[in-house]
């Protein structure tokens, strides 16, 4: 059950080029948040920005009543948010959306494909998956444009999981894309499961590859989300629906997602 909280900022610091980590005190959210879920954030009382923006939950410490968000300062909202300091407050609504759940009966590795600021939900997934009996092997593929754009690599390493870094320019890890690593990991490991979050072209490549290879795959999608709570129908994604004309329907990314089975999705 989502709730609305004026959360105190415990920390809001730069991690990498334009990448920030925000720690918020919001016990009611920290108590329930699962991997893949997000919070809908607003700062200021003015109308610029007017609308909330969604951010995935990167980490939770239910005991301390706090959770972390990792975000990129891109447009007006996120650069404005980056200027806030510890002690300021931020209005958050959450936790929202569905969760990544660990797929069952996976003999091979669970492969988490994290592109750029798509890393946060997969970090929380990795953290919750660790130690569970179904998690025999966990591989994180952590890609970005350059080493400066890598997100959460240190956090993944700190979890002690296997991390394979790729950068488009070779400035860190493998010179290539997450797809190169994915093909390799899948190649030597049958019956794996894939979980992905990142920019849309990457997600599409991962999803189409997995569908073609019959590898079970879940992806977390980003769309513009005016309400985040399922009431406005502004955030829909196209999914297969044999009962509908042309075989597709629009479902809410905020409420029915953001995590979808790659099999269901239709890409334009």
């Amino acid at each position, binding site marked *: 059950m989502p709730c609305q909280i004026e959360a105190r900022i415990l920390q809001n610091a730069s991690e990498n080029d334009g990448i920030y980590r925000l720690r918020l005190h919001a016990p009611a959210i920290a108590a329930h948040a699962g991997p893949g879920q997000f919070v809908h954030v607003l700062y200021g009382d003015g109308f610029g920005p007017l609308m909330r923006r969604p951010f995935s939950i990167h980490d939770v410490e239910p005991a301390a009543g706090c959770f972390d968000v990792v975000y990129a300062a891109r447009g007006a909202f996120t650069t404005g948010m980056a200027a806030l300091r510890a002690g300021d407050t931020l209005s958050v609504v959450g936790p929202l959306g569905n969760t990544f759940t660990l797929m069952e009966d996976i003999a091979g590795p669970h492969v988490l494909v994290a592109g750029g600021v798509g890393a946060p939900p997969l970090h929380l997934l990795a953290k919750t998956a660790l130690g569970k009996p179904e998690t025999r092997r966990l591989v994180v593929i952590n890609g970005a444009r350059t080493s400066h754009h890598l997100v959460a690599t240190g956090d993944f390493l700190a979890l002690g999981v296997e991390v394979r870094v790729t950068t488009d320019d070779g400035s860190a890890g493998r010179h290539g894309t997450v797809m190169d690593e994915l093909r390799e990991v899948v190649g030597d490991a049958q019956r794996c499961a894939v979980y992905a979050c990142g920019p849309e072209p990457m997600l599409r490549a991962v999803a189409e590859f997995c569908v073609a290879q019959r590898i079970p795959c879940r992806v977390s999608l980003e*769309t513009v989300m005016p*309400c985040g709570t399922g009431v406005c129908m502004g955030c*829909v994604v196209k999914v297969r629906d044999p009962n509908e004309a042309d075989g597709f329907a629009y479902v809410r990314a905020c409420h029915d997602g953001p995590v979808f089975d790659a099999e269901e999705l239709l890409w334009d």
Partner: protein
Amino acid sequence: MKPDLSVSLGPLRLKNPVLTASGTFGFGSEWAGFYDLGILGAITVKAVTVQPRRGNPMPRTVETAAGMLNAIGLQNPGVEAFIAEKMPYLRRFDCPVIVNIAADNIEDFRTLAERLDQVPGVSALEVNISCPNQACGGIEFGVDPTLTHQVIGDVRARTRLPVIAKLSPNVTDIALIARAAVEAGADALSLVNTYVGTAIDARTGRFRLANRTGGLSGPCIKPLALLAVWRVAQAVKAPIIGMGGIFDATDAIEFLLAGASAVALGTVNFVHPRAAVDVIAGIEKYLEERELASVTDIIGRVQPAV
């Protein structure tokens, strides 16, 4: 003594003047975490059509200066699924349910009126005449007084429920349309629906909405909506549900002063899910501070500036 917040919308008696605006509150079921829907003056649900509607392709919305454009395209499960799947939940609350009905031809409006007439828990119909009329080459029902009269009259003839006409503000003279709706038998008027606009992405050279145009809502339209309400209040006696950019109790009071008997909260629900709670409390406080016994003491009471 607590001030009396109750108001009448024609035959409909509300415990307070704060409603949700159609399309910004879904069918209520997502709201359980924020507050008890029973606190609301009434719930107005998302537009319902005869057949299910899939809605428009994405992108459907874009933020603009102090507002947003939407082109959802009336996505809804259709009237039968609404009655079967949504009404049971809505009936649980101590709160009238206003069903917003939409159609692109007169026949569908008639069907909706007849079908919803006897459904338990439905308290009123809000007729969304902002849709383009297929039979008239896509011109909106609500921009033409004759079409407005016809739709409202036909709905009126087919239901014993209170009929609320939801007016489009995209007209030269909204009072003219309001008069047509009242003459055709509307018990109350809702205004305003969204203002039609667009957004373009200079970087890509493309429209930002798949539908090209969308409806503008939010604080940016408040000055326009407030004037529309005041003008219609001068022109007709029918009670008005005022809306358009209401974000807090002060905004709501401005609409009441302009002549609205009730107000509806739209876009604000996306930004402040608990807005209705704050607006109801804020109106009560305003009346208390001025020692006014009833919210009706401020309706339409705006005075000249000097």
